[in-house]
């Protein structure tokens, strides 16, 4: 028989070893640790096999339960996905050229001879621009392949997306929308948003009137007219506003013509003004504020701001009414701003069909929330998204690669006193009564509490 002393010794030894195992289990260097209910991933380690993650090849997964996981390579992420088909809402990959994270469904994939993560022998590369993908394939004996996460991405039942189509001008104003797709913030909020780009304001208005889109981003004067149009619309959010350092709209004098000289000019001052309602409003407002005599100004109507800029450059006109990004280019060239909106309260806004507001109230709420998350990311990390601005913000190549990111407006809508001068102007023109109730123009109920808006997981 085992003596009591020995039995005690054995029991104590086993308890000590159990304690060692418990401590080892808790304090071990596991790549995934179970915290209070949620699985917590150790930063920098792959969630599939624990490999150290090289940030340029990181793949992120956003799960239906709100968790995020990071993988060292596309190889590991696809292997993990095989076992978790019904848990993933989206994957993000890193564009090997710019180093920016993007939704995997927007990427182009190449399988080549170049190994990215030798630990797992990963040879699949992700690119945002197809030309770059083809260039890599040519250089390294590779070929374009289908999205390794599946062309027909099966979403979990709990994560069915609501579809929205939004029109956006090819201007910096569209960047919050573009980023929310690129990253993908919309998907994180269970939205499948498609952006329909348009060049001219009129084009956007047509898209909206024909119900091809739920809403558009446009400037405030046009939005106010739209609000009382048939079908009626509502302004639900501010997008981009001028600030004391960067105007949105400015009347710029041609090179060599100073402020005083422009005012004292004899004869007609030729001013190029793009053809749309908003530019007309700003032109009238600036001419009035400069106290120019009505017989001393000749308005030259042009197709768009690009043409107005071109005429200004060639000296065909004495001044042009410009909008960002041309206003920024003019400032960079140290041209004279005769009048601008740096101290004015107007902005571009998001306007949507009034009839859809009640129908899709919850969807619009999530949409606005996503946009707020996008704005937060853009304002917090402007340099990180500069290439997106370059590619999709309508920035002319001449503006250079260092074109600064605008500061986008957070959760806000135009205030009654902000729209009042525009209403008066529209009233004078017979386009809209200045007594139109504020509630029939602006709907503020979708704006989230700014304190509730945090960075989306894909932007952290």
């Amino acid at each position, binding site marked *: 028989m085992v003596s009591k002393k020995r039995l005690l010794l054995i029991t104590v030894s086993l308890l000590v070893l159990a304690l060692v*195992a418990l401590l*080892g*289990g808790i304090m071990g260097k596991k790549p995934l640790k179970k915290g209070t209910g949620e699985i917590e991933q150790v930063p920098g380690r792959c969630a599939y096999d624990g490999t150290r993650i090289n940030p340029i090849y990181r793949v992120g997964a956003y799960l239906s339960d709100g968790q995020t996981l990071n993988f060292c390579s596309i190889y590991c992420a696809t292997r993990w996905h095989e076992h978790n088909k019904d848990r993933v809402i989206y994957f993000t990959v890193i564009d090997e050229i710019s180093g920016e994270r993007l939704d995997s469904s927007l990427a182009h994939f190449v399988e080549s001879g170049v190994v990215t993560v030798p630990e797992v022998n990963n040879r699949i590369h992700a690119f945002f621009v197809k030309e770059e993908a083809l260039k890599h394939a040519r250089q390294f004996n590779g070929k374009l392949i289908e999205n390794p996460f599946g062309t027909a991405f099966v979403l979990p039942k709990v994560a069915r997306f609501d579809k929205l189509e939004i029109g956006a001008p090819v201007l910096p104003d569209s960047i919050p929308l573009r980023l929310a797709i690129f990253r993908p913030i919309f998907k994180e909020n269970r939205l499948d948003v498609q952006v329909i780009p348009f060049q001219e304001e009129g084009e956007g208005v047509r898209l909206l009137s024909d119900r091809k889109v739920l809403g558009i981003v446009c400037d405030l004067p046009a939005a106010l007219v739209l609000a009382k149009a048939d079908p009626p619309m509502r302004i639900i959010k501010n997008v981009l506003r001028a600030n004391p350092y960067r105007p949105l709209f400015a009347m710029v004098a041609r090179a060599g013509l100073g402020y005083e000289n422009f005012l004292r000019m004899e004869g007609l001052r030729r001013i190029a003004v793009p053809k749309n309602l908003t530019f007309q409003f700003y032109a009238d407002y600036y001419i009035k504020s400069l106290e120019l005599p009505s017989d001393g100004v000749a308005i030259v109507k042009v197709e768009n701001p690009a043409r107005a800029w071109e005429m200004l450059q060639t000296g065909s006109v004495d001044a042009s009414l410009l909008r960002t990004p041309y206003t920024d280019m003019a400032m960079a060239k140290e041209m004279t701003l005769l009048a601008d909106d740096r101290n004015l309260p107007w902005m571009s806004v998001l306007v949507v069909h009034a009839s859809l507001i009640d129908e899709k109230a919850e969807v619009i709420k999530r949409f606005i929330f996503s946009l707020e998350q996008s704005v937060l990311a853009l304002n917090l990390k402007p340099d990180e998204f500069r290439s997106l601005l370059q590619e999709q913000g309508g920035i002319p190549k001449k503006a250079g690669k260092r074109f600064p990111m605008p500061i986008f407006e957070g959760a806000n809508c135009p205030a009654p006193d902000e729209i009042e001068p525009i209403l008066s102007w529209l009233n004078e023109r017979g386009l809209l009564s200045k007594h139109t109730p504020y509630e029939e123009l602006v709907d503020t109920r979708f704006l989230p509490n700014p304190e509730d808006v945090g960075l989306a997981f894909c932007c952290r």
Partner: protein
Amino acid sequence: MILTVFSITEIFIGVVSMILMGWAGVFALMLALRWRSASTAEQRLEVENRSHLVLLTAVVVLGIRLLNWPLFYAALQSFVPDIDGAMCIFGVTQVKRLLTGVSELLKPISFFLIGAWLLLHLLDQKTQTSPLMGKKLLFLSFTAAVVVAESLLDILLMLQIAPGTLVSCCTTVTDILERPTRLFPQAAVGPRYEFLLGTVYYGGNIVLMILLVVAMRRVKAVSSPGGRRLLGGALFLCAVLNAALFVLTQVEVHAPRIMGLPFHHCLYCLWQYVPDAILMYLLFVLGTSAVGWAFILDFFARTGETAGALSAFMRALYGFSVFCLAASLVMNTVHLLAA
């Protein structure tokens, strides 16, 4: 060659043990042959007197070689940062695949033989007339040959692993769906093989421990040698099968859960993420080996003079085995609960 504290120690131990065990092995063989041919007590005494240095050398060197197994893996682990693509020991083993494979296979054999010889020697030391001297010397020469081969492989491996070698690591081998550790059990028992493996792991260990406790009580000096050898052999076979089951269960079921990586099946990764698992494995190896050592002792060391001590040794070995297996089981269970 990659210079680390472990690789230098490994080479030093390798060189010293190769030289000393080479000499000890040859000398032990000569003495064993002399012992066989010795017909008088004087001749045997002379062999015994001449064997002291060999035995002392063997005890010291083999004692150190017992620790060489973990040291070998510590050396491989220390190479991980210098091998491109290696995230654990598996990556390092891919640099010189054949050499490392043979070396890894030889390590447990060497460990087992060394343990068995040391116990045989210890048992012989407890007798008055050294009745096991001949067998002990012969066993030593065989063990020495294995140790020399193992040492040589260690040295070659340490010298040949070059820094900066590009390899792929465990994920591309251990985690593929076609891995044999998954295919065989799945083919045998179906898709619920993971649950069954986990159940059989516990069942196997508990049954083995019960058998060992029963055997511990039955081992007596008076019991029949044939029956006892049969029992010892059967237990050893059970222990080996249990070890195979242990490895399979660890790879397929427990290691991924303990690591918190449900699809990663690499035991080397487990050791680096959960280092105390090494202790758990060591306990299991000792528990399994002890059953084999008891069988070897019973096989080689049964003489009239050793009968009493042998029974005590076997009981102690079975008891030690039960403790080690139980400790390993407890640690594994705690890890699974904490995972």
